[in-house]
């Protein structure tokens, strides 16, 4: 192994995402071009063949995720990248990956919607689609980076989570983080651990692809390794065969939920600033959280006891720390580039006596510190 040198670079969020994927061992990319995510595909088209990996541009986003899932079944660490409309087309296969427990990473560089919306302008309006986009019950893992270095490290983590929990993992970049340039050290110092999926510990004759383990995680080998089994999007039993037995249906759906939600505290991450003595709190993620950090620092100069709570995983929502923190607050402000999505989660976890104010912008421009400060003043009147 060569000595790895940690070097400083000035990279875009999308570029950092690509580097993070390669660091995590991504060896397959399938997708379809869409603004503002295209740099990810372009860079991987250049880099993957050189590293013995596969790049393929498919005929649409539906096939884009399908090819990724096929490769993952064959043993690849596979990913795709898209934006709003493409993410909508991928929903059926996100559900398929969740049901069949196929690991994959899906990057959605959010743009304005609904529909074709604002292809080149920032927005954060896919939070709920990432949570509730598919049909059926669903417990997704969704990461939201707020900087270029996080775009790298969260991508590595997304692969680790996908490989550990055998599930699709979504990264929500917003257009600003995707296209913004910032300093980043690559490879990261200290290094980030890279996880690959487990192989079954039993011989093929004792093997059940969807065994009901306490953790809900049932290791499955790639196709072609002597363990022949069936994968289906139909509700299936432990052997992977379609079932309509009520007990088996319940067990399967419980397994899927348990796998993620029993580990929700481990999966969910967050960041806080000035919250120790805060009586007022701003909740924000992604690019907007950076504006909010500036606002908090400005208001602190004026002796205002205000803090920032920034979920780094949107789903599972960092519920415990949120409840803990929200309880102490006199007011909570939720700043988002949409008409109000995370605010519902915040309201759920805040006591009813704590007023929650939404500060929203959805005109294709990033919210300014002044707009936030004005809105806070207005709320305090």
């Amino acid at each position, binding site marked *: *192994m*060569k000595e*790895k*040198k*940690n*070097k400083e*670079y000035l990279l875009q969020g999308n570029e950092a995402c690509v*580097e993070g994927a*390669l*660091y995590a*061992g991504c*060896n*397959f990319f*399938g997708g379809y071009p869409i603004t503002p995510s295209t740099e990810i595909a372009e860079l991987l088209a250049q*880099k993957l*063949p*050189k*590293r*013995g*990996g*596969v790049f*393929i541009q*498919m*005929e*649409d986003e*539906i*096939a884009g995720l*399908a*090819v*990724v*899932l*096929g*490769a*993952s*079944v*064959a*043993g*690849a660490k*596979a990913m795709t990248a898209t934006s709003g409309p493409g993410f909508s087309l991928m929903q*059926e*296969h996100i559900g*398929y990956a969740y049901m069949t427990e196929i690991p994959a990473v899906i990057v959605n560089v959010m743009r304005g919607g609904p529909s074709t919306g604002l292809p080149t302008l920032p927005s954060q309006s896919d939070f709920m689609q990432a949570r509730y986009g598919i049909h059926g019950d669903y417990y997704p893992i969704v990461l939201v980076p707020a900087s270029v270095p996080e775009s790298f490290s969260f991508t590595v983590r997304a692969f680790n989570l996908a490989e550990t929990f055998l599930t699709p993992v979504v990264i929500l970049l917003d257009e600003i983080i995707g296209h913004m340039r910032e300093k980043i050290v*690559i*490879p990261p110092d200290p290094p980030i651990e890279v996880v690959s999926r487990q192989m079954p510990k039993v011989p093929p004759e004792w093997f059940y692809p969807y065994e009901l383990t306490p953790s809900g995680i049932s290791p499955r080998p*790639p*196709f*072609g*390794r*002597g363990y*022949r*089994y*069936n*994968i*289906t*999007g*139909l509700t299936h039993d432990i*052997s992977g*065969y*379609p079932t309509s037995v009520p007990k088996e249906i319940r067990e399967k759906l419980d397994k899927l939920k348990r796998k993620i939600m029993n580990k929700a505290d481990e999966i969910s991450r967050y960041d806080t600033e000035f919250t120790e003595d805060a009586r007022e709190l701003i909740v924000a993620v992604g690019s907007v959280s950076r504006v909010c950090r500036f606002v908090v620092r400005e208001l602190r100069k004026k002796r205002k006891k205000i803090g920032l709570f920034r979920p780094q995983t949107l789903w599972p929502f960092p519920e415990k720390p949120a409840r803990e923190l929200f309880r102490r607050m006199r007011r909570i402000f939720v700043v988002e580039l949409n008409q109000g999505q995370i605010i519902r989660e915040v309201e759920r976890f805040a006591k009813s006596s704590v007023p929650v104010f939404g500060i929203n912008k959805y005109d294709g421009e990033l919210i300014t510190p002044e707009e936030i400060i004005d809105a806070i003043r207005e709320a305090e009147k």
Partner: protein
Amino acid sequence: MTEQKTVHDYLRQKKKFPTVWCPGCGIGTVMNALIRAISSLGLEKDEIVLVSGIGCSSRMPVYLDFNTLHTTHGRAIAFATGIKLFNPKLKVIVITGDGDGLAIGGNHIIHASRRNIDITTILINNYIYGMTGGQVSPTTPEGDYTYTSPYGNLEPQFDTFRLCDGAGATFFARTTTYHVVQMTTFIKKAIMHKGFSVVEVMSQCPTLYGRLNKCPGPVDQLKMFKEFAVPFAKAEKMTKEELKGKIITGILKEVESPEYTERYWRLVETFKKGSEYEGKD
């Protein structure tokens, strides 16, 4: 000589039979021919991957003791592309139907043909949507009755051969469930063909298509296949008028052309770099 395997050796013992297929359905005949083809080629079960979408035909992989992936409606070929491209050693076979493969999955059959990726597609064409209860499909003949064409189908039929040929598939064969020996031979040839190969098997659906179109018995439909099948060589000498309503059977296309996975991995070899992450290049 290796031990002779029977059809039963390829069926999943744990899977509870009977199949979902109606009595008299043609899909079981195709399953039988597929097993015989794989068996006589001497292929290992572990190197076979069956991929299917949604529909009656797409249920086939579940019963067979291979690596089997039952995917979403219409997308089997896209999933299969990922498997084949990442692990070209696997023999990837797609099982699809006329609705799954030509309507919702039409885009993928076109592009797999264009790429000429080494996947074998067995398209079981029974002229109708069976699993959802008898709706019009892209291959339902004009004027025929289904539950969504109650006054007769107004739409022209898809010609699977012309579609795949035009898009660049390098092997195409058509047969029927009446011609079982021919079917096995064609499937064998398709599996061994390097490139995107399609075997279209015209099959009977007595429960829905037959019943709605005054041909309710499976035997009647098989007799029709026998009567209407015209070998490719003979068809070339017939006029368009004479060929109306006929099924042209045989190997309609078999050409050599660069195969996609081979092309891709040859490109990778030109770089010869390790996959270890050594920082940004």
